[in-house]
Structures are given as structure tokens and as C-alpha cells.
């Protein structure tokens, strides 16, 4: 930190990379906050957490007791002396909507999200088959959508400027897009063969929606067109995507170990016409992998995709969580097979990063979070939350604090704070360690330290 400030002072590091370094060093310091506490009013497990995208100030939570609450995480409602001079800021909920509310949900709220443009609206999805849109200021319901089954997850595009669609994943096989502007269903997207656990909008295009179903498939939809345009296949890897120069005509002929040449340290390696293909045989190199550009991709696969590709799966079992990185180039998915997979969005291939997950919850959708610089992903792993290095899959930090299963996490990149919610009805705040030195040693003592 000190060295970074000095390098910045001397103009050695750019402001941008200085900022990134400081924030990433703060992220590695995350621990259970010793100065911030969210007082959970929920009496059921917490299923969804989100901080608003405009101000980064209001935390919205949805819980199994059919209640949703909003907290101000910037300004505490009151403080509590924690002894040794350290004050703990208590953040109590500003508004709570529960069963007692005239329009409240009847069953568990599985998803609570903010309207992306401002904090005037928020959306809750519940197991009582309803998606409700609420006015934050009046805490009144302004709109509701009756879904064909339990709502697992709702999502709104963070980029959208030309549509106001809520994508909803439900028990039903169809994904529905609910239009706030008209109050009706805009689209139904058919393709999944089982309920849809998780939905996520692309962070690079406002028209692209990603859904993950209980059938283990992750589907990409361009909502302007019919049908899905990409189904992720866990067996498609990046290797061999770009055929080597000399071997473009004779791809995948011989499969020689690349490790042999890797072992040699500094030595020139003219690339020979031998290249280990990703999946071992050529047949599996189906068109998806070799699509060079977006335009041709859609034309070739749209709308009637070959049924063999259509059956591709991303996970064995249900896809329980999806998260696109902030730069929109990668997608992370969590499955009930206890795997996290990292996908390259453009090529639609599995990057084969092996995340060291032990076990993941299988029955419920889980909510992942990434850091802004796309270096870490926070994954609820049973009772703990683990931060994995996205590129190596190694566990960097394990956050243990919940007494029961963790369902959701949200990372606020503005303050470098992590919020987690679990079945133990707690919302925990993880923040960069703040030095609370016990400087309450009496000043009289200090006087003796003087040298004259």
C-alpha cells in the first residue's frame, strides 16, 4: 500500500491501476465487518440480496418468510459501542414488506431485485407464483404478474435503455419476459426441458439473456429473435479453437502431448502441425466452436439448431447460479453437480478452470458475485462463502460466519464490501479490515515515551 502510494506520487503507476490495486488489496482483506452490522428483520432464510446499481446505497433483501426489506448501507440508523472505542454501525431496515402487507406475497420470496435505472421501484418474485413490482417510496404494489409456477429468479438488464423487461425463471420450462411498460408478458422463451433456476442478462448486450435450467442447460437468447442461439456444452473447450497456422487444413490429425514441449524451458518451439484437440476427437468439434464471428453464428444456428447441440448440457444436474463478469466476456455458472464453470461468452466454450468447490447447495438457486476487476468470484458453498480466483479456480478466502446454508451473496464494488445471506436469517457484512488499534492506553502513559 505504502509503495503503491509512492509509485503513484512519482507517476510510476497510472491512476487507474493504482485504484485497481488498492481496491483489490482491500478485497483480499475482507473479513466479518467489525464496524458495520445489518439487522435482519427476516424470520426466514434469506434468498436474495442486491444493492441498487445507481447509488450503491440501498440493500434489498428477500426472504423465505415472504418478506422483503430495504436497508441503507451508507448511513447507519444507530450506533452501538462495541467496547474499546470501536463503534458498530447498525443498519436497520427502512422498509419491510411482509405477509401482513395487503398485497404481500403469500410464500417465500425467492428473488428481490432493484429496477436498474433508479431506486424508485423494486421487483420481487415468490413461490406463490407471482412477480410483484413495488413502489419504493409508497411501499405499494404497482403491478403484478401471475406466473405458471414458483418463481425462482428474476432479472433486469443493467444495460437496457430500450426495454424494461423482467426475465423470470420459474418451475415452468418456459422463460417469461414481463414488460413493466405494458404490464404484460412480452415473450416466452421455450427451449428448456425443465424448470429454470436462474436467469442473468448479458453485461455486454441489452438483448442477450442467459438462462440456466434444472435440465443442466445454459441457453443464450437474443430476445429480438425466436429461439435460443447458443447452448453451452461442458465438453467444448477452448483448446484448438484457433487452428495453428501450418495445420489449418489438417486439424486434429494427430494428438500429441503438448506437455512434452512445455517441459522444455527456454527453447524455440516452432508450432508443428500437431495439436491436442480439446475434446479428443474431431466430431465433437461441432459448428458452435468454430464460429468465427457473431453474425454468421446467428445465421447458422438460428432458429432451428441441430438437435444434438440443443441437447448439450453445461452441468450434470441443475444449473443453480449464473453470473456474468463485469466486462461481459465470461460467464460463471454453478450447478447441482457442485461445480463452478467459467465460460468464454464469445466462443461459448468451457475454459476448463477447475474451481475447488467442495459442495454446493443443490436444491435452491444460489446467487454468485464477482469483483469488478473480474478476479474473484464469491460462491456460497454450504455454510461458508468462498472467494475463488476466477482464472485459476483456487480458493483465496473462505468466509465462515453463517450457521446454516448460505443462499446468496452480493459484492459492492464501490465500498469493497460483501453481503451474504443464508438460512440462518442473518445478513452478514464482510468488509476490509479496519485497524481498530487499542489506543485507549491512557495519555498519561504515553508521556513517558518521550525522549528529550
Amino acid at each position, binding site marked *: 500500500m505504502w509503495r503503491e502510494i509512492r509509485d503513484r506520487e512519482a507517476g510510476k503507476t497510472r491512476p487507474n491501476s493504482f485504484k485497481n490495486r488498492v481496491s483489490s488489496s482491500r478485497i483480499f*482483506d475482507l473479513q466479518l465487518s467489525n464496524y458495520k452490522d445489518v439487522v435482519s428483520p427476516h424470520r426466514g432464510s434469506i434468498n436474495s440480496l442486491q444493492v441498487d446499481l445507481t447509488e450503491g446505497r440501498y440493500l434489498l433483501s428477500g426472504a423465505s418468510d415472504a418478506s422483503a426489506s430495504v436497508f441503507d448501507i451508507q448511513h447507519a440508523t444507530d450506533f452501538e459501542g462495541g467496547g474499546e472505542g470501536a463503534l458498530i454501525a447498525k443498519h436497520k431496515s427502512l422498509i419491510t414488506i411482509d405477509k401482513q402487507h395487503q398485497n404481500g406475497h403469500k410464500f417465500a420470496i425467492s428473488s428481490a431485485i432493484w429496477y436498474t435505472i433508479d431506486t424508485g421501484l423494486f421487483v420481487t418474485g415468490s413461490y406463490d407464483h407471482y412477480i410483484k413490482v413495488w413502489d419504493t417510496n409508497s411501499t405499494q404494489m404497482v403491478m403484478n404478474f401471475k406466473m405458471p409456477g414458483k418463481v425462482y429468479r428474476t432479472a433486469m438488464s443493467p444495460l437496457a435503455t430500450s426495454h424494461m423487461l423482467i426475465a423470470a425463471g420459474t418451475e415452468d420450462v418456459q422463460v417469461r419476459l414481463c414488460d413493466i411498460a405494458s404490464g404484460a408478458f412480452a415473450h416466452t422463451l421455450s427451449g428448456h426441458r425443465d424448470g429454470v433456476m436462474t436467469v442473468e442478462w448479458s453485461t455486454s448486450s441489452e438483448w442477450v439473456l442467459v438462462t440456466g435450467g434444472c435440465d443442466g442447460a445454459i441457453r443464450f437468447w437474443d430476445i429480438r429473435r425466436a429461439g435460443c442461439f447458443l447452448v453451452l456444452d461442458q465438453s467444448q473447450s477452448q483448446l484448438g479453437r484457433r487452428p495453428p497456422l501450418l495445420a489449418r487444413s489438417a486439424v486434429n490429425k494427430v494428438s500429441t502431448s503438448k506437455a512434452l514441449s512445455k517441459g522444455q524451458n527456454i527453447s524455440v518451439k516452432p508450432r508443428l502441425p500437431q495439436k491436442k484437440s480439446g475434446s479428443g476427437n474431431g466430431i465433437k468439434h461441432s459448428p458452435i466452436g468454430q464460429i468465427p464471428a457473431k453474425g454468421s453464428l446467428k445465421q447458422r444456428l438460428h432458429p432451428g439448431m441441430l438437435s444434438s447441440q440443443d441437447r448439450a448440457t453445461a452441468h450434470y444436474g441443475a444449473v443453480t447460479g449464473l453470473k456474468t463478469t463485469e466486462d461481459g466476456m465470461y460467464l460463471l455458472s454453478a450447478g447441482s453437480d457442485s461445480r463452478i464453470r467459467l465460460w468464454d461468452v464469445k466462443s461459448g466454450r468451457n475454459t476448463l478452470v477447475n474451481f475447488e468447490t467442495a459442495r454446493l447447495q443443490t436444491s435452491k438457486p444460489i446467487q454468485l458475485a464477482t469483483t469488478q476487476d473480474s478476479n474473484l468470484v464469491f460462491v456460497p458453498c454450504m455454510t461458508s462463502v468462498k472467494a475463488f480466483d476466477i482464472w485459476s479456480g483456487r480458493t483465496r478466502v473462505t468466509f465462515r460466519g453463517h450457521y446454516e446454508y448460505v443462499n446468496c451473496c452480493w459484492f459492492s464494488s464501490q465500498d469493497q464490501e460483501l453481503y451474504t445471506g443464508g438460512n440462518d436469517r442473518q445478513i452478514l457484512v464482510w468488509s476490509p479490515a479496519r485497524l481498530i488499534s487499542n489506543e485507549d492506553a491512557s495519555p498519561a502513559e504515553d*508521556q513517558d515515551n518521550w525522549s528529550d
Partner: protein
Amino acid sequence: MSVWNYVVTAHKPTNVTHSCVGNFTSPQELNLIVAKCTRIEINLLTPQGLQPMLDVPIYGRIATLELFRPHGEAQDFLFIATERYKFCVLQWDAESSELITRAMGDVSDRIGRPTDNGQIGIIDPDCRLIGLHLYDGLFKVIPFDNKGQLKEAFNIRLEELQVLDIKFLYGCSKPTIVVLYQDNKDARHVKTYEVALKDKDFIEGPWSQNNLDNGADLLIPVPPPFCGVLIIGEETIVYCSANVFRAIPIRPSITKAYGRVDADGSRYLLGDHAGLLHLLVITHEKEKVTGLKIELLGETSVASTISYLDNAFVFIGSSYGDSQLVKLNLQPDAKGSYVEVLDRFVNLGPIADFCVVDLERQGQGQVVTCSGAYKDGSLRIVRNGIGINEQASVELQGIKGMWSLRSLTDDPFDTFLVVSFISETRILAMNIEDELEETEIEGFCSQVQTLFCHCAVFNQLVQVTSSSVRLVSSTTRELRQEWNAPSGFSINVATANATQVLLATGGGHLVYLEIGDGTLTQAKHAQLECEISCLDINPIGENPSCSQLAAEPLGGEIIPRSVLLCSFEGISYLLCALGDGHLLNFQLNLSTGELKDRKKVSLGTQPITLRTFSSKNTTHVFAASDRPTVIYSSNKKLLYSNVNLKEVSHMCPFNSAAFPDSLAIAKEGELSIGTIDDIQKLHIRSIPLGEQARRICHQEQSRTFAICSLKTHSNAEESEMNFIRLLDDQTFEFISTYPLDTFEYGCSILSCSFSDDSNVYYCVGTAYVLPEENEPTKGRILVFIVEDGKLQLIAEKETKGAVYSLNAFNGKLLAAINQKIQLYKWMLRDDGNTRAAV
């Protein structure tokens, strides 16, 4: 009245970030183009040196500066990309000597993470495309069409996570990039990719190379016939191509910049982080690379860019110190260095700290900056205003007036300098040895004070004394006619030009004389209601002898001391200086004689004398007072610029053969002759320290500066030493040094005094920076007193963190320590001085 602040840039950026050499302005001319943050400077290489041609501001910090030559063009185009993701292609227009924008555009993407290692912009050597690496994971391609126009850009996915450098390879049938990258195990590799423009994708390139030097940071593509790439690491340099691999070990150093010497790419200059310049030679047999050799040439500023100009001349652009123009000699000098510094270009950056002081107590602040970094650290004294380069001076007391005279009316140079004292007038002249010597003009009356002197037509001189006006021939130096003031009246003020004399006698009498060949005729006489305090007759415009009549009540009690009619940029002004240092100016309508646009400014506190002079063919007005000022006009606005002199009582232009375009300036007890600097320029004086100053503060009472500085030893293990140094504020010499402990860094410095103690102390806040600690947990506050030019440690107090900032607060000391602010009180204890935390 609302107060508006405005911000202007006093000094253009000086930090050289990029440079390139090519035939930009004409196919025959060689240009050096230098990027300084937000400006580009185009220089022409001439046998006399670098000749600046154009200085252009760019809206945004320059991230990439490249010259390229599309097919069929005779001269180079300039490609610039800014950190705001804008780019442009510029061409030189020889007719208007200006730049033409050939193409421009925006290359930003809505999403994407900006690269950590800075933006990379490269141009294919065969001009097939421009490649940009702006966001992690994306390589943006701007292709050229056959006519050299830019086509629509597209992105290619680049899987490498941490790209350190990308370069185009030479001599490839398809554009090929070589990428130096770091994987997630922190190992570094290079990889090549062919750019398939049709498919808008990469194809794996001809070769790759894994597991390089862990400090490999820079790629140098080698032009034909070798067509490989040099990979510069911290401990090795590797030459690599499809079938050749050569490596040599080097002394550990971080290479910051390179410059290619030969067109065939067999020699390169490498500049490292310690400012050492090396020559890297690729030895070869015909077209086959056989090895590498490296040789130390010498030391320069820490280079951020190196451009080999021609004939062993090299431009070293630096971000941390002065940029240099160096010559590489064939033979080493006495110190074994092949580098000879020919020219230095001042660089103020990076400014870590500064303080504003008034060293000469002129009421004009100077900025003393902690500039530079590492070994190029320095203090720079930046002052505003106009400098006078003193060329000669004589001690003379009590000067009351000065005028320069010519021996002939059409003589281009002044010969005589008439200096008037309270009871005598002396005449100085330039003798053959170009020295000022006292002479006599027989016709002048030298026993009395001269009120005014001027050259007149027909080779005559006019002298006005309190009793008479004398017309003297300048050739024979004899009196030709004398006009005596009416008895009972003495001349109080007088003024004259070549043909007219205007004088005022007591009682408000105004007399106007005309000068003929040996005659003085009283043409007019007028009596005004009030006493006349000052006069001016200066021909302006087309209508010099028009008798102007205008009255403007000045108001107030202050007597005007000097009036002046003059014209700037075709506008006539009447300037009127008052006795209290204020200056009124009016615009004068020549045809009606009306005065309008009255403005009042304060120049000083003493009476002002106004005089015109010309410098570089433009007219300026010198206002002599306790804060001498030059008044000039720019964009039809009057501007005032301070002169870096203390009190000036009189000034007159003195354009002699030995001192062309000079001014004679009468100061307190001294007459000096000097030339004037460019108007409106900052003056920068450098005090090289050889170490990096981080904090500075000035103490008025002891007339010293104290700095926190950091000395880096650039031997194998990077060791650093921190000092508190005391400098004299006039000579800027180190007077005293207090070394800090190892790992202890000075963070803040303050000169202050405490309540109940009249002494002034230097307070220094420090931090112990231990390598294993993320944030300092220990620091000190040191209190020094300056005694006999020595820093004496009076008290010290340990803190629980780095003392980032110190400030005086109600006689106490306020310290920012890590995340806390603490107030310290200064207490006297029985055994001496003590402080206690409150």
C-alpha cells in the same frame, strides 16, 4: 460583488512520454515528434540542433504516438491515441504549416476493463492495420484499405489475461502480432498470432516461446532481414524468431525504453530505470543472427522514450528528469562515458510537493517544487514575471531621471545616457571599449537637475531644466538656442518629442514650443485652473500634432505622477499613474479626443513612472515603482506582468551597439543595463539533488527550507535511505542533514510554532514501512529547531501509524495518523521541552 476564480495553465506540460522520428513535414526533412502529456511538439532536425516547428495541444493524455507511411505516400503520417479512447491520424500541410486531420474516431467500448499495464497502440510495418490493446481480453483492429484509408474497427478476443506488450512482426505475409503475457501462475510467455482480417479473428502464429525471464517486459520487433523479436527481461535479453533463439544475461535492470539505431535493426539503445544507456548489438552472419552483445554507454536521465535522430545524436525523453539531447561519441571520455549531453529540456514533473515562498520579499511568490524522481530528483524554483538579464551595472546614488540620446537623428543606436541628479546632470556614453564613460555635452547645462531630454529633428538635442529649454546640436554639441522660462516662474514638468516641447510652469501655465532648425518658437500658451503635475507628448497614430482636449475628473486625493499616451495593437490608450501606485487607463478616441473605458489597477504602493520601450518590435510600457511592471497588450487587452526586480525608480530604453535592445534601470543606489526576457514566461531554476525530494517546507525565520528526501542506491539490492535535509533558501545548499532510521520514511513536514513558545520548529511526521506490513503501524513525530544552521532534534514522539499529514492548529499540532486525527499539545516539563498527546 461575486468573486470568480479562474484557472489558467502557467506552464505547459514538460513530461516527455513518447517520441518518434520520421519524415513528417516533408520527404526530405527529418522530424522529431515529442509527446508531452497533452501536447505534441514537432521539431525539425537541423545542423544547428532541434528547431521547434509546431506545438499542438491534444484533448486528452497521449497514450500512443506512432509515425507510419501508407503505401504510395512520400512522407509519414502521425497516429495519436489518447487515454480517453480517441484517436486521430494527422498529416502535415506544408503550405499552411499546419496539421490536417486525416482520420479520427472513438475506439472506446461500452464494457470492458481498462488494461492495467497501460494502453498499447501499434501499427503494422506494412500498414495493413492499426492494432490497439485498450481493454483486457480485447485486441482492437483498425484495418487500412488499399488507398490507405481507415476502415471500420473490430475487436478480436485475446485470451491472454495479463498482456504486457504487443508488437507487430516484420516481414510476415499476413499481419502477425507477438504478445508477451503473464499467466495466472505469474510466468511470462510470448505467443504469436496472425490477424485474419476477413474472418476478424486470430490464427495461431508461427511460433511461441514459454517460460521467459520473470521480468520480461518489453518486446522489440527486429526489422528485415532478421524479422524476429527481442524480448528484454530484467536479467536476460532474448532474441527469438521462428527458428533462431539467442539469449544473453545482463546486469539486473529494468529496461524502460528503447530506440532503434540502424534501419536494419542490428543495433538498439536501451535505457534502464537507473538512467543507464546501453547499446545492444545483434551480431549476424548475413541474415542469420548469431548472437547478442550489450555494452554500457553512459548515464542519462531516466528515459521514458529514446529516439535515435541521426549522426549519433539521440533524444532521451524523460518523465522523471530533464529530457536530453545527447551525442554518442566513438571514444569514451575521461569517465568512460560515451554519452555527451548537448542540450537539456526542462521537465518539472513529477511534482511530489511544492511550497510558495517570497524569498526576495518582493511580494511576489515563487513556487519551489519537489520535482523529478529517483536520481533525477531536484528542486525547481518557478517564478512568474519578466526577468532582466543584467549585463552591466554602476553604483550611482540618487538618480532622479534618465534619458538616452543619439548622436545623430537617424543613428540606429543610442550613444548617450543622460542621468539627472538632484543638483547636477551627468552624461554617460559608450566608449570604444564598450564601456560606459562619463563625457560632456558642452551645450548641456550640467550643474542643475534635468527635467527632460530628447533627441530632436535636425540633429539636435533638447534639454529642459527648471529654468530653461536648451536646444543643442548633437554633432557639434554646442548650444544653438535657449528658451528661458518667464522670470518668476520655473519649469516644473516638461516633455518633448522630436519636434515639440511641452512644459508647465507654476500657476497652471502650459507652454508649447516647436523645434525648428536651430530655433525654438513658443507656439502657444495656455493657463489651466490647476497646477500641472505631469505631462506627456508622444506622437500617436496618423495625427501627431493634433491638440487634444479632454478632461476627465480623476477624483480622489492622489496626485497623478505620470501620464502617457501610447498605442498598442492599433488602439490608443492614455495611461495615468497615480502617486499611490494605482494606474488608470483609458481608451482614447483619436478623432474626437474622447476618453472611455476607465479602468483602475493597483501596481504597487509607491508613485509610478511610466516609460515606453520596445522589445521584439512591439511596444511595451514599463511602470517603474516599488513593484516594477511591464504593461503590454495581447488580444487587444492590456496585461500586466511583474518584473523580477526590486524597487525601480527610473527606466529608459538604451539601445546601444554593445547592449542592443537593452534597458537602463535605476535602482536603489545602482544603475544597471540589461535586456528583458520574453514577456509572460515562467522562469525555472533547477537545483539537482541526486535524490528524490518528497516533501518541502519553508521557514521564514531561519531562512531555510527543510525537505524529506529519499536516496535510492541503484546497486544490486535496492536500498533506500531517507533524510531530513536543511537547505539555505538563497543558495539552496545542504546545511544540515538528519538521517532517518532504516525503513523510516518522511511523510509530512511542517514549520510551525506552539503556544507559549516563541521558537519556530520544524515538525516531521514519519512512518516505519516494514516490508511485511500492509499498512504502517509505527511512526514518529520529530520536532527540530534550527540552531546555527543545524537541525537539532528537540523532541520525538512515537505514533501508532504513519503520520500522513501535519498541521498547526491553535498553537497545537494536528496529525493525521493512519485513519485517525490526533491533536498534540506542546508542554514544558521541568527537565526541558516535552509534548503530550491530548
